[in-house]
């Protein structure tokens, strides 16, 4: 199992690109972190999600 933004997801074995394609995220406006390491956009195709990974997908929101 993989944690993505706090939710359990059964996506181990997929690449970041493959996972994002299953979601409604707009890849242009997000950043992805895997186990507290940033995954650069250029590595989405080659980064394979492992069982136990903790992934965060973030974007900008309004703030002070």
């Amino acid at each position: 199992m993989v944690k993505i933004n706090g939710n359990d997801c059964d996506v181990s074995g997929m690449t970041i690109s493959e996972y994002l394609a299953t979601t409604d995220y707009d890849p242009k406006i997000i950043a992805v972190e895997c186990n507290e390491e940033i995954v650069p956009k250029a590595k989405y195709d080659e980064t394979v999600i492992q069982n136990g990974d903790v992934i965060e997908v973030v974007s900008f929101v309004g703030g002070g």
Partner: protein
Amino acid sequence: MDDKLIIGGHEFNSRFILGSGKYSLELIESAVKDAGAEIITLAVRRANTKDQENILDYIPKNVTLLPNTSGARNAQEAVRIARLARELGCGNFVKVEIMRDSKYLLPDNTETIKATEILANDGFVVMPYMYPDLNAARDMVNAGAASIMPLASPIGSNKGLATREFIQILIDEIDLPIIVDAGIGRPSQACEAMEMGAAAIMANTALATAGNLPLMASAFRAAIEAGRKAYLAKPGRVLSRGAAASDPLTGFLRD
């Protein structure tokens, strides 16, 4: 008059840094325009697949984005958020904001100094939000800060310049731009801080809680510009007692 605000080698004409929290995305464009703002703050949060709106679509392209590290409780978390913000691809400015306390939302100066050093060494233009303390501000300068952002009063309180005397000390002693951030609720307070010599004002809640946001943005703009001009004009002295006539003391219509 050539009077630029310079932060980390970048020049700005506006001295009003706008927050983008707590109001609708549709109002951002007019807020930026009416504020005359050239810098706007943003936060980083978990992305939401339901709400597809992209805040960046509402911000004019010539405006510099200033992501904050809100949500960080220590230096390590702030560094992590700052790097994610940079990965979002909108420059290398960051407002370091670290809070351990959720009641008063006061910044942790010690952790902020640590985060400032790490991020400055990593190439960020670091603008630390801080409790106005001269020693901490000096440490932030030495850590590589590009400006210092002392609070006027607790975040979102609209209470104004509760820390006035301590902000004045920073203005007098620190060679970086002092940008008063948090707690400024009214244009008159922003004007006063600018008259004191603050380099800029950051405001969010004052606008978000106003009855008419764009009108309040333009009121703040005018107040900040007025305060800046007054500072440059060097305000006149205050008598400790007595009076000083403005009119000639000769030629009265009597003998």
